[in-house]
């Protein structure tokens, strides 16, 4: 067993691009769910807005990739309004139903043959990200060179995306932190606790919920952009339901209603995920047998990994429901 390889990959998992795009999406979910109490189960839909905003610049509009940023944000504001207008006056569960359905509708529309001209169908779009890499080359991080030291060795292309990604995480984390410390954030937290009380004190609850939904959605959009740029491709099936729930898992792991939780949660999530994956792949290199019965081989590693992640979450809920950064005292006031 090659422990140094497992160790190296695990460390890379901690700070890798997966953790970056999860962290930004989790920040968005945190604004909606952690601070305002809005159950958005369609974060993947907002991420698709960002990815397709970028992708469509090459596929359909044939303009510079940079236009994809405002375009993606425009899409997500539109999506937020579309979902929020009918549901934010209703109870929280209705928003959950609508968002999960809307995210699926988006995925099915962008992968459909009918709209292949705009969205590239199930093949997706993959000729837009060179603009981003060119900028990396220009600032002196050559995409073909290898940088760093063991265990942190990256190609220039990975490194450039990582740097931009972590700078964005830091900026957006600071942005959310500042907002939540302000009276604006106080109103959101109060809405999470009791809307009617907030309404009786003269705040327009509906408007605040809409602002929260859209802000969280825009963060999801930015996350989708990072993901698309890293993969150099936009694939409709990367924005399915399970993405939303993994992000939610990572968020709960870190601790809701904490900025640090939504950044460290995804890091831990991908750290554990990469470790288990690498570890089990090495264990199951030779099929494991008991007598004639084959217990597992390398093809079983993927599903087993997700089972273990699920188990981790269950154990977390039982023994540390507040997450890594939560406050147990705060949790104690639930349901009163």
């Amino acid at each position, binding site marked *: 067993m090659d422990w140094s390889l497992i160790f190296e990959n695990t460390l890379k998992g901690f700070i890798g691009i997966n953790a970056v795009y999860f962290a930004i999406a989790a920040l968005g979910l945190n604004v909606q769910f952690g601070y305002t109490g809005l159950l958005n189960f369609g974060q993947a839909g907002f991420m698709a807005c960002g990815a397709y905003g970028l992708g469509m610049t090459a596929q359909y509009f044939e303009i510079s990739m940079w236009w994809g940023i405002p375009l993606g944000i425009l899409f997500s504001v539109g999506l937020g309004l579309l979902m929020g207008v009918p549901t934010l006056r209703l109870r929280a569960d209705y928003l959950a139903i609508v968002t999960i359905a809307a995210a699926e509708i988006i995925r099915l529309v962008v992968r459909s043959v009918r709209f292949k001209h705009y969205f590239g169908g199930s093949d997706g779009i993959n000729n837009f990200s060179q603009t981003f890499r060119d900028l990396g080359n220009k600032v002196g991080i050559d995409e073909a060179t290898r940088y760093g030291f063991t265990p942190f060795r990256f190609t220039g292309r990975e490194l450039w995306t990582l740097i931009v990604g972590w700078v964005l995480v830091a900026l957006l984390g600071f*942005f959310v932190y500042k907002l939540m410390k302000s009276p*604006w954030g106080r109103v959101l*937290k109060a809405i999470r606790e009791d809307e009617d009380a907030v309404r009786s004190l*003269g705040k327009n609850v509906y408007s605040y919920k809409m602002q929260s939904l859209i802000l969280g959605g825009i963060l999801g959009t930015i996350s989708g952009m990072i993901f698309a740029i890293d993969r150099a491709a936009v694939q409709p099936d990367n924005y399915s339901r399970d993405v939303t729930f993994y992000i939610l898992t990572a968020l709960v792991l870190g601790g809701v209603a904490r900025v640090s939780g939504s950044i460290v949660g995804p890091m831990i999530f991908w750290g554990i995920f990469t470790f288990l994956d690498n570890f089990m792949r090495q264990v199951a290199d030779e099929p494991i047998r008991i007598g004639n019965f084959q217990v597992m081989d390398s093809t079983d590693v993927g599903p087993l990994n997700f089972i273990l992640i699920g188990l981790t979450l269950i154990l977390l809920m039982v023994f540390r429901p507040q997450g890594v950064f939560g406050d147990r005292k705060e949790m104690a*006031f639930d349901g009163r």
Partner: protein
Amino acid sequence: MAAERSYSPLAQAARSALAGCEKVPGSRKPDPVLVADGVRREFGGIVAVDVDHIEVQRGSITALIGPNGAGKTTLFNLLSGFDTPSTGTWSFDGRDMAKVAPHKTAALGMVRTFQLTKSLTKLSVIENMRLGATGQRGEKWWNGLFASTWKKQEDEITARAEGLLDRFKLSHMRDEFAGALSGGQRKLLEMARALMTNPNLVMLDEPMAGVNPALKQSLNDHIRGLRDEGMTVLFVEHDMDMVHDVSDWVIVMAEGRVIAEGTPDDISKNPAVIDAYLGAHQGRSLLEEGA
């Protein structure tokens, strides 16, 4: 039963104005702050509230009483904009409230509390208080990012909040989560938080529910304190001792209608009220019934 009390000039004026009012349902007041006309609310086939006319005298403490299911809380919700009547008009300070969005009533000076207290449990007591202030610049998200735009206002709000916490004897809980307060303290916090909006009319929905007798006395004093500062208080209550002790005027509801109005002393002698609370045939033998 009530001890000799001193009343502020404002309170005295309100009390003497009420003394001259006709003691019938829908009686006209010299200076009403809240007026409702033909307010009717139906839930399916059930008429929960059907009030022809009520007025609430400015600067007074008015109690709204009645047996369970009389429609008091429904009327309360209608008057405070939390529910919309099927028909009818109501106005506050001369302004037609049918055209005002519910979240704007607080800015106009009308604030309410709830029967089941709504403390925001995961916010600290002082944050609960700060939330009450209206017209905060920092509640716009684009200002929220720049502390310089709201810091000064926040300090003023905090100072005012601390003053009120002091008055309601909650200062020692300032930085605790509101969820850590006792039931009675939550009632106090909710009242104090409502005062942060600088209201003219305070509407309290069962302020005494679930409060121990010692705290009831101090709540009574707080309510009288509001009136003495010139606020109008309208409250729903079951506790007849408290109503008698604190109110200047009483409106009695039964089955969605106003059945009596008057000073507390008049109301406790009113046969219609006794009927509503205890049944029309009390004191008579049941044997007389069937005949």
